[in-house]
Structure formats: C-alpha cells, structure tokens
C-alpha cells in the first residue's frame, strides 16, 4: 500500500456517494449552495479524521463484542466538539446547516470507515483514508451544490464572491427545493453508472 494511491482511492473507487453510497442524507439536504456544501464537508471531515485516528489507535484495546457502541461514543464526542465550534465561530453557517451538524453522528460514512478500515489498519493509513474519503465527499457535495445553486438561483455566490452568473428566471427555484436534490443525484448516479459500464465493457 502506498499512501498516495490510498488517498486517491477515497476519491474514485471508494467515493462515499457514488462508490460506497453512504451518507445520502446530508448530501441531499445541505447542498442548496456551494457554501453549505463546503461547511458540511468540513464538519464531516473533522469528525472522520479524528474518529478514524482514535478508533485505529484503540483498535487493539476495544473488545470486538462492544466495538460499535464504543465507535458511536467516540464519534459523538467529536461531533459535539464540531457542533460547539460551529455554533461559536460560524453562527450563519450553523443556522443554515441546522440539525445536520449533530446528525453527523449517525452519518453512515463515519461508522462505516471506522468498522471497515480504521479497525483493521494502523493510525497513519487510517488518517490517509479519512483524508481521501473526506476529499471525495467534499468534491461530490460541491458538484451537487454547484449544480443546484446555479440552476436554482442563476448564480453561484461563495463567501461573498460571485463565481458564475446565468440569466435565468429567478422565480423558478425547483432545483434548490427538495425535488432538485433527488433529480441531481439521480442524474449524476446514472452518468457514473454509464461510465463504469462502458469501462467494464472495454475490459478495464
């Protein structure tokens, strides 16, 4: 195993949304804008990195019969920390993400990586794995957030800067409403499946 390919694996083959299909709730709920997508990914990344490090460091001490409750307690601790930091230093972001910050605790990505990876590998590789998965999550969330914000509001505004602007009718907001989320992820998933099938047919 070399660290770089482990990192890339989290973005491509084990991508949390398109590869593992875990953590759908925040992916759809908070992607009304690129800004929210970045905030959500940052929170998830913090929890994922620390949970992976701690689970991996303690993996020889944790009895396997009670490992899931222990993982949940470790994760819940870091989620509480993120929750308080966000509330104290980024109040507008905290208000926009709302209940989805505390809900990181039941995000299947984190407990999934703790169980499938950190519980079996050393601290360094668990750290790399967490970074890779977090980057994959960030990229997908920004992609979905970008599509929805652009088609829903006609422009992408991130931290005060207008990145792109389209002359769309501002009254048509379907894409930032719930149906737009389902439509975007369904389309993206179909494209990913199509590309994968094509690659397989070529014998790749």
């Amino acid at each position: 195993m070399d660290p770089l390919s482990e990192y890339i694996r989290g973005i491509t083959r084990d991508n949390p949304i398109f590869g593992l299909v875990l953590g759908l709730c925040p992916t759809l709920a908070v992607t009304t804008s690129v800004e929210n997508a970045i905030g959500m990914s940052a929170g998830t990344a913090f929890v994922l990195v620390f949970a992976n490090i701690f689970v991996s460091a303690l993996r020889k001490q944790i009895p396997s019969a009670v490992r899931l409750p222990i993982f949940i307690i470790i994760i819940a601790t870091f989620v509480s920390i993120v929750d308080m930091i966000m509330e104290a230093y980024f109040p507008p972001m905290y208000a926009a993400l709302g209940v989805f910050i505390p809900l990181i605790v039941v995000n299947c990505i984190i407990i999934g990586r703790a169980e499938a990876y950190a519980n079996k590998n050393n601290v360094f590789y668990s750290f790399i794995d967490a970074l890779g998965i977090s980057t994959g999550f960030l990229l997908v969330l920004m992609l979905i957030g970008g599509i929805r914000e652009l088609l829903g509001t006609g422009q992408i505004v991130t931290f005060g800067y207008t990145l792109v602007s389209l002359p769309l009718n501002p009254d048509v907001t379907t894409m930032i409403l719930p149906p737009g989320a389902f439509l975007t992820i369904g389309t993206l998933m179909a494209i990913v499946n199509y590309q994968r099938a094509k690659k397989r047919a070529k014998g790749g």
Partner: protein
Amino acid sequence: MVEKALFAIFMEGVFIKNFLLIQFLGLCSFVGVTKDFKSAAGMSGAVIFVMAMAATASYIVYNYILVPAGMEFLDLISFIVVIAALVQLVEFVVRKNVPALYRSLGIYLPLITTNCAVLGVVLLNVLSEYGFVQSVVFGISAGIGYTIVMLMMASIRERSTFVNIPSSIRGLPQAFFISTMLSMAFVNYFWVIPI
C-alpha cells in the same frame, strides 16, 4: 414550551416537513429497504414505534436529568445512548412477548439505531422547544409520514421491476427519479396547508 396546536404539529410531521421527501432524514432505509412492499411495511412499523418511544424517553432525559444538572452540552451523546438502549429494550420485550411481531420486525430493529430519522425527531423536538405532549405527537406523526412515503415508494418500485429501462438507470438512479416525482407532489401540495 411553544404555543402550537397539536393538529398543526401533526400535519407538519406527516406532510409539510415530511422526513423523507422534504427534510431528507432516513434516506438510507428509503432507498435500501423499499425494494419490496413487505419489508418496507416492516421497517415502517418499527420506525413509528421507536420514534414515539424515543420522543418520550428523550424528553424525560433532557428535561429531568440534563437541564437540572446544567449539562445540556451532553444532549447528543445521551440521546444516541438512549436510542440505542431503547432499541435493545424494544427488541428484548417484543421477542419475549410477541414472537410473531418479532419475526416480521426483528431484523429491522438494529438498523434503526443508526437511522438519522429517529435522532432527527429527538433533535428537532429540542430545537423547536416542544412540550411533552407536543414531542410525542411530533414523534408519532413523523413516523406516520415516514410510513406513507415508504409504502408509496415500495409499491411503485415493485410495480416498475419489469419496466424496460436502460441498465445504467436501473436501481438507485431509478429510485431517485421516482423520489423526484413524489417530492414534487409533497412540496407543491402540502406547503399550501394554512396552519
């Protein structure tokens, strides 16, 4: 406690703030367990049950243990422990007393511990500052809303099994396209309820 009619809370839980289609809570089970009607019904039954119990138990834990002790910052950890303990307890009681129900719900109970819809009910109750009866009503109505959508989705998916569609859309993308339609109906019809 906020002033709000119980009927308004009920309609909000079932339709206006539907957990699956509007708030995106509990989507893993929504796309995972809706391949056939029977398991969707089993999962929904278990979720209504656990949501009502979790709303009750967490209200008591939050207001009678955490608030007097000044430890509100521990809410998340204690809620997740309460839900996990509750699910174990429900499993134990149901297995012992109602074996027939256990055979149909049993395998879904462990899944519920990490279902974000249940934790969502509990957190939203605290966030909206609901009183005891309001919390329980919100828990039950969220469960009913979840059930309605799960059953609709499962029926549609079951009937569309033999539809001839491109292979890259079959499965998850198809499920998301069906949810798009359902979600449009929920957004457009139920946001006009004047409460």
